[in-house]
């Protein structure tokens, strides 16, 4: 249902913001992942404190048709706890690195959440009725003295306030030596992959005590390590195909039918380096931080430090489209290296019709690129325009000296305010944008 007109024909409006208002950010509240479920009705966020918060969209109010339903908290639970690895004397962070929803098969919802080492399958179920009228139990649960029972009755279900329960159904642990950066559910909905810096494992959702290693790029001699895996994803339609990206800017497509261990890729996607832009930072900025297939499965998108690239799976030697996210940072790479911002891992996402792509930037800016009109827009996630249905004003960063009115100069950008995680509703023009500790929801203007 997303318009083909794309990011610039849409007028984006502020809808909601979730999270604390004060500037003092609690470490545990830093949002680390955002993901819509397959219908878009549920929106899950994970944070550094190991918690998952799920928002549910209100059913559209037929009377007030000028806005889509709001997202309200549906469930909150502690997914991961901090652990201590006694063998290595390392603390394992509870930060949720990724959340992936399973498609809904029954009344309950399932999602996978992962920290650095352990993946968990959570079942989120609703309870809105409870049995009442037991013979041997009081309403509060205490047991009645059987001798006081004089009549018998049949317990019945009565409505109760909606209660949402989250229970861990599977725990997939002890399979990763390095830090998990990606999980991806296969289109067969039975298996999924988890990727860490050097290995990718294939799991079955029902089996927790073993997994298959399908990619292993750890060199025999660790001195020769120069490249790590940065992201991985299954193809949306082909259950035998997956891709993984590397810190050297390459993407490898692997076919699991070819061999059990997919160390040899079927396709290697790599763009030759532009010699005029070569610097000591070339490799770092070419490191891919996110890879996402389009919904159609024909294209994939990669995000490196300065750009977003769209690849046609049939063409390996270069991307079909390249969009510069914040080219004005190219001359600042040394400072960004010094303050470590150059290692920030930005994510990217497609809209439902694969016509627009979105990614985050600094100063709480995020960018959208319309693939059809080739236009792009920069918007800001801030509390300043708090009123719902306020249309967001496009922002512009001025790279060179002369700064026009309303433009922001590169030197005034706040590099602590970065938008790393964004998500787009699978069917509608609703986007979720995560700043450090706040979640913004924007919608297109509905007339």
């Amino acid at each position, binding site marked *: 249902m997303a318009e083909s007109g794309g990011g610039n024909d849409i007028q984006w409006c502020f809808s909601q913001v979730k999270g604390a208002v004060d500037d003092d950010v609690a470490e545990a509240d830093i949002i680390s992942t955002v993901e819509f479920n397959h219908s878009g009705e549920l929106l899950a966020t994970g944070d550094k404190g190991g918690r998952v918060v799920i928002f549910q969209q209100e059913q559209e109010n037929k009377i007030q048709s000028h806005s889509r339903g709001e997202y309200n908290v549906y469930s909150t639970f502690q997914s991961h706890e901090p652990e201590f690895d006694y063998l290595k*004397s390392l603390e394992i962070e509870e930060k949720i690195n990724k959340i992936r929803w399973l498609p809904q098969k029954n009344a309950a919802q399932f999602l996978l959440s992962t920290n650095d080492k352990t993946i968990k399958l959570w079942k989120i179920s609703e309870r809105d009725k409870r049995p009442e009228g037991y013979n041997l139990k009081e309403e509060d649960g205490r047991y009645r003295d059987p001798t006081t029972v004089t009549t018998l009755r049949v317990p019945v279900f009565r409505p109760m306030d909606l209660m949402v329960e989250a229970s861990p159904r599977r725990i997939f642990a002890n399979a990763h030596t390095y830090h998990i950066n990606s999980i991806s559910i296969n289109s067969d909905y039975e298996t999924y992959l988890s990727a860490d810096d050097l290995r990718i494992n294939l799991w079955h959702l029902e089996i927790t005590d073993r997994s298959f290693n399908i990619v292993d790029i750890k060199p025999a001699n660790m001195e020769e390590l120069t490249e790590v895996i940065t992201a991985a994803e299954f193809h949306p339609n082909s259950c035998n195909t997956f891709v993984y990206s590397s810190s050297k800017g390459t993407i490898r497509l692997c076919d699991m039918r070819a061999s059990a261990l997919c160390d040899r890729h079927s396709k290697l996607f790599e763009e030759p380096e532009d010699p005029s832009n070569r610097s000591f930072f070339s490799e*770092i900025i070419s490191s891919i931080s996110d890879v996402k297939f389009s919904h159609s499965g024909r294209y994939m998108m990669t995000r490196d430090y300065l750009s977003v690239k769209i690849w046609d799976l049939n063409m390996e030697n270069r991307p079909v489209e390249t969009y510069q996210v914040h080219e004005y940072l190219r001359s600042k790479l040394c400072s960004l290296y010094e*303050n*470590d911002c150059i290692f920030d891992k930005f994510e990217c996402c497609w809209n439902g019709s694969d016509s627009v792509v979105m990614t985050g930037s600094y100063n709480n800016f995020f960018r959208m690129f319309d693939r059809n009109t080739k236009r792009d827009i920069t918007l800001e996630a801030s509390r300043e325009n708090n009123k719902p249905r306020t249309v967001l004003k496009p922002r512009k960063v001025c790279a060179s000296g002369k700064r026009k009115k309303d433009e922001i100069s590169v030197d005034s950008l706040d590099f602590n305010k970065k938008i790393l995680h964004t998500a787009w509703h699978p069917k509608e023009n609703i986007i979720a944008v995560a700043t450090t500790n706040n979640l913004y929801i924007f919608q297109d203007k509905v007339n």
Partner: protein
Amino acid sequence: MWEEAQTPGGSASAVFPGLLRRSEVGLGRVPETFAEVRGKLPCAFSNASRPVNRIVVTKAPTACWNRGSPLPRLSCGLRVGLTRRQDPDNRSLKDTMFARGLKRKCVGHEEDVEGALAGLKTVSSYSLQRQSLLDMSLVKLQLCHMLVEPNLCRSVLIANTVRQIQEEMTQDGTWRAVAPQAAGRAPLDRLVSTEILCRAAWEQEGACPAPGLGDGHTQGPVSDLCPVTSAQAPRHPQSSVWEMDGPRENRGSFHKSLDQIFETLETKNPSCMEELFSDVDSPYYDLDTVLTGMMGGARPGPCEGLEGLAPATPGPSASCKSDLGELDHVVEILVET
């Protein structure tokens, strides 16, 4: 290539005479001193709700760590490095570098490079920038060791950058010129020192790239030297800086604070060092396997090259302490620049 590049600058062995010996002693836990310190720091990733003391426990069942030993000097010093993003102390470098991407073709850059690098006046500005980038990278790599959970991707990227710079500097021939003044240093020391830049952190996770100098050299990893030589690794390109700072008088204060930690190392079983750095894929949590390895089945992998370097003699801890005193002052200088 590296044979020619080996300069006579042998400051490492001059300052740290016991460099090779330390490895033989099997002080595998030296890196953990920095991990230990991190627990005290207002690090970006400290979490008040975590009850766990970040002091690292030893693998040897009988060793006892001096938990909670105060390390005020080291803490203060390291804080500069660890609060990376808004670091006022690094602002000078930032100001210098801000509007300049470091491009290979960028020559004739006229801007003056201030402060610590002024000692290399005769080198061109591009080389100065490149040098400071190298220094920055090496400091970052060293700080990697101090983090309890180093980010492997970041470490690999920084190491690759270091390798690129070193390769270019070797081609230019400037690698030689920038070498430390101290003479008589064995080439092996220098190679070892930079090679293990990332060794500590990665060996913990079973991974370790050599930042370039390992090319062509098959010597085994000197795993247990980690923070010692990683601290001194940046030294060889910028020893002039440290000379300027007049480091000697600061040694004593460090020495005392680290003593409390290092005295616990004396009870360490040297043979379990190998197991510490061995790759623990699976059985990952198999305690039996680990303990068996600790007892007597020393895995040849990580340390066999080391044996080739020098005869393995169990060095006394005393020599280590003197070396560690020198390490202290090196670290202090590093973090205070």
